[in-house]
């Protein structure tokens, strides 16, 4: 259980692991996440499921080494086991059966978008994907995304590849160029999802986002993951993680995401595990 079968470096700071867990593999649906713990005194951290294989009993996780727990996770090698892994958690994404969907993925957010695109493609929905990163070396899962997209647009902030600019800028260009689509799914860092929502808002274009707040238990007990959606408090772990992005209180979500920024630094420094780059 929880053995790492495959490990790949997608970028210098982004890793992909394929983990054996028949329970999660059997029940996982696009949009859901797992909670894991790397060591006995470790945190419980949520990671969105990037892929699953019911035949092989595996789930795929993609993560960026940004804090202590992801740095420690990145140190595990093929054959190692993740101490604890529980899931699938959260409500599966509600995906349409027809029409056109634009999938927007920023940075490591391309990973959680992938299973949604796969499922949409399988259902015969027209999938137009826009993926982006700061520069060309940080673009992940391009081939996998291409395989389940009818159109794939690549953006980089520095213009080192594809469209120069944010994914939200590319989306605006496509919409203004006459793109007809029924809804948008955006996953990535908060500023990127927020910008995407601001882009689609004037067009009244339904935009789903996948929230990734700080969690503790992740099963509907602690309330750490609360956000405001449409003026009401929602718990991302049981009500989400997918929400109508036009209803999300982004300013609050951004402040809450930074609640432990100081402690995260202390944790990385005190463990001397070579992280914090």
């Amino acid at each position: 259980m929880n053995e790492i079968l495959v490990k790949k470096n997608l970028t210098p700071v982004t890793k992909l692991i394929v983990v054996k867990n028949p329970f999660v593999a059997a029940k996982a649906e696009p949009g859901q996440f797992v909670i894991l713990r790397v060591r006995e005194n470790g945190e419980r951290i949520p990671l969105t499921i990037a892929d699953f294989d019911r035949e092989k009993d595996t789930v795929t996780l993609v993560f960026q080494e940004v804090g202590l727990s992801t740095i420690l996770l990145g140190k595990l090698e093929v054959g190692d086991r993740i101490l604890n892994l529980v899931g699938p958690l959260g409500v599966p994404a509600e995906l349409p059966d027809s029409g056109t969907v634009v999938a927007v993925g920023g940075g490591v957010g391309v990973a959680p978008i992938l299973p949604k695109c796969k499922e949409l493609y399988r259902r015969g929905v027209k999938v137009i994907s826009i993926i982006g990163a700061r520069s060309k070396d940080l673009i992940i899962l391009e081939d996998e995304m291409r395989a389940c997209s009818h159109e794939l647009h690549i953006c980089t902030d520095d213009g080192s590849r594809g469209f120069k600019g944010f994914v939200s800028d590319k989306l605006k260009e496509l919409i203004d160029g006459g793109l007809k689509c029924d809804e948008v799914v955006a996953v990535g860092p908060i500023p990127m999802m927020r910008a995407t929502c601001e882009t689609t808002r004037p067009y009244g274009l339904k935009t789903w986002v996948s929230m990734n707040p700080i969690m503790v238990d992740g099963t509907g007990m602690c309330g750490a993951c609360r956000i405001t959606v449409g003026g009401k408090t929602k718990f991302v772990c049981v009500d989400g993680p997918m929400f109508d992005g036009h209803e999300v209180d982004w300013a609050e979500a951004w402040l809450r995401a930074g609640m432990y920024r100081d402690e995260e630094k202390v944790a990385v420094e005190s463990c001397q595990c070579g992280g914090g780059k």
Partner: protein
Amino acid sequence: MAVKQRTPMPMQDPAERARNFSQVAMGYTEEMALAEAARCLQCRNPQCVVGCPVSVQIPRFIGLIKDKKYREAIDVIKETNSLPAVCGRVCPQESQCESKCVLLRTGQPIAIGRLERFAADWEAKNGAATPEKPASNGKKVAVVGAGPSGLTAAGDLAKLGYEVTIYESLHEPGGVLIYGIPEFRLPKEVVRREVEYVKALGVKIETDVVVGRTITIEDLFDDGFEAVYVASGAGLPMFMRIPGENLNGVYSANEWLTRINLMKAYLFPEWDTPVKRGKRVVVVGAGNVAMDAVRCALRLGAEEASIVYRRSRAEMPARAEEVENAEEEGVKFHFLTNPVEVIGDEKGWVKGLKCVKMELGEPDQSGRRRPVPIAGSEFVMDCDIVIMALGTSPNPIISQTTPGLNAHSWGGLIADEKTGRTTRERVWAGGDAVTGSATVILAMGAGKAAAKDIHEFLSGPQDKW
């Protein structure tokens, strides 16, 4: 004959203990236990047993302590209670067994809880006898949740020969005993010992399984389980729905306590999970959970830790003993005070709690006098952490994913009070998942009742539900 005084519990000095996580009540010595046991009148018709939700044979075990037969004493307790070291510490004995003690009229009832704890701790020190694993009757029962209710039901069923598997969503068994009740009231080592005992009875515990997500109750029946007991415990924390509740520095008591107890945030950065250490901490609510939360705040170094409660002292739901402990440690109490807004700074952090003064009006549905705001009495308490300890509503995942399993509109599973039977055949439920936030011992009582009824059902014709 003059009644001897109840033997006092040795306690850590308040000023010292308010800054550490070691146990507050240190437990009876042998001499103290013998002195206390000698006070028991050994009533022929003992009412204390009636007052115990799990029917511990109280005079019998106290008699054995008096005779220094400690091993026999703990065995008697364990006949009906799988978690004696826990109960001896956290049960509200004053409203259960001890409230029925014939010596109550003298104001000095037998300290039953302290003696129970003594017996359990004696066993821990002197080595627990490995319980005999009963012969299997070949029938499989699943239990959802390894908290007090689930562990009790599992223990009782295992003793009857059932093959019991408990599915636990967290990485460690114990439920509220592990994530909720702090180390200084219930050391986690004690909980682990009790869990080991239940496992020694033959119970399997699968952690990291969220029933309703990882597997469903339908899956359990497909896997050959003949009955399922749902004891999934407390659910989502309740908030006040006042402005500012999502500011940084506002916690639910569940999150605050889970970080501190389950994740050991008080040992950060040795342990990886952090918690904010406030200078001025305000806890809203006055139940046992509120007391635990506010006392943790002191231990994390708060200069000032306060309780804000909209009713008066008399209506506080917490055990008197816990309130007293908190007061001794320096917790401040603001009664007849109700928050109306959490005030934040420009960076989104809590800087104050705006409250209104209340007065007691006419009695409400609960029979308690209803607190009414006094117009124009608003004031702001400076603080950097606010903790909402207002109770929880049961987690909806199981009722949503189990056809035929019905819940009340407020979220609690519908279950027969005596037997725990739900609206779905072969599914029983009890504890906080049914009652909403209640006590450890009531959850254990429900587990016990359900185990008994599961046994009756599975050994009968199984035709009536």
